[in-house]
């Protein structure tokens, strides 16, 4: 079977496209037409021409973080919001893949909510591990982001424009030596949520910690993530959006596209390239090249789902 990653039909194989994107910090347009994924390097203007609806993925804002890697995470979140307001094609809504706050403090939740509300976009949230370290271990998060549609620690699903969205929580009840955790109750809920849905329904799943294994030594994976992915595999188009690792990692496997987003607060090192996955210090003038937002474009007529990353640096 041909490995699409090395298919040079565009004159630029996907592997090289990914490498170029990560180095240059420009946008990558992923499209899936007829079930065959292809990618091209594009500018923001080209992305804006894409018809259909789009939504935003914001991640790892860490409001309250104030260490050398970024002395003011709230300020860079405000810059990200300015970018959102300046997008040529206004997204339909935004999802936040967690670590909204840095220490689960009330003021951090309040500040984040205030800044994100200025986007004028409806938001769907899942918590990161930094959002559930209050005394109630997640109660502060649920007080703000629990709705009549969320269950348990805050998992949820909703439909937009014929696409089924599922928000999962994999940052609670973690075990020593383990990775992220979904838990049996949530997995049972997921099975029930997917039951009876047409396999041609496009699905977008979002959760904080990567649902697939990227680098277990640094906790970049979910212990029971494979169980969730197995339930999703029969569907024709599945997009998995995660955060947590503060850098972009992508892969396509069959009908499933995986993407992790940049943070709006600070970058983290590539797997194994530092002693630990802590905040990575870069020269202050370069910080914004490592921070970013993701726009996902969905075009209904030919069923592609395009994921475009942009940094906070001026293009």
């Amino acid at each position, binding site marked *: 079977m041909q490995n699409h990653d090395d298919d040079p039909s565009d004159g630029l194989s996907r592997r090289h496209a990914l490498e170029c994107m990560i180095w240059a910090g420009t946008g990558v347009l992923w499209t899936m037409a007829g079930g065959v994924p292809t990618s091209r390097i594009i500018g923001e203007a080209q992305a804006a021409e894409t018809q259909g609806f789009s939504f935003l993925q914001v991640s790892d804002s860490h409001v309250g973080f104030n260490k050398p890697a970024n002395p003011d995470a709230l300020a860079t979140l405000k810059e990200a919001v300015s970018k959102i307001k300046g997008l040529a094609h206004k997204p339909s809504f935004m999802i936040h893949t967690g670590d909204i706050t840095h220490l689960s403090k009330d003021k951090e939740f309040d500040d984040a909510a205030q800044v994100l509300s200025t986007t004028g976009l409806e938001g769907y949230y899942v918590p990161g591990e930094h959002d559930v370290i209050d005394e109630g271990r997640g109660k502060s998060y649920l007080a703000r982001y629990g709705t009549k549609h969320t269950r348990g620690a805050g998992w949820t699903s909703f439909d937009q424009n014929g696409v089924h969205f599922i928000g999962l929580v994999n940052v609670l009840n973690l075990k020593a*030596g383990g990775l992220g955790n979904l838990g049996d109750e949530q997995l049972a809920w997921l099975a029930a949520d997917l039951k009876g849905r047409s396999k041609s329904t496009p699905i977008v799943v979002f959760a904080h910690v990567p649902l697939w294994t990227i680098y277990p030594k*640094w906790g970049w994976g979910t212990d029971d993530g494979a169980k969730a992915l197995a339930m999703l595999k029969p569907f024709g188009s599945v997009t998995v959006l995660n955060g947590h690792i503060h850098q972009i990692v992508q892969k396509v496997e069959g009908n499933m596209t995986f993407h992790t987003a940049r943070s709006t607060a600070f970058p983290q090192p590539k797997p194994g390239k530092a002693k630990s996955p*802590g905040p990575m210090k870069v020269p202050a003038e370069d910080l914004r090249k490592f921070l970013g937002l993701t726009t996902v474009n969905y075009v209904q007529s030919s069923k592609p789902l395009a994921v475009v990353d942009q940094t906070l640096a001026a293009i």
Partner: protein
Amino acid sequence: MSRSQSSRHGRTERLASISKGRFVPLALASSLAVFCLVLPPHAATAWAADGKVAAVNIDNFTFTPPVLTIAVGTTVTWTNRDDIPHTVVENDRNFRSAAIDTDEQFSHKFNTPGEINYFCSLHPHMTGKIVVKP
């Protein structure tokens, strides 16, 4: 109970004396213990068995030392040197810290002999062990 209470009380008095610059004659082992307590935090090192306090450093997402042996009744203090918060949670959740931010500390007194395994609930690949000797 009274023995440990009086030695704690005595230690506080000796601490106050040393910080005012007066020398108080003591048994050698006890004065060493008190001297270590007044060192600045970054000079603290893990040490075992002799005193009633011990230290674990959290650095680069690692508990150091990963295995610490102490005498029963010792208080262990964890100090976070990372630019990211961590927690200390006993594997079965018998005790847990709040979030420990950079340069913050968490202390726990171990009153029962045995082996206590713990981890960081934010970064569960970080694990450690306290061995409490009778």
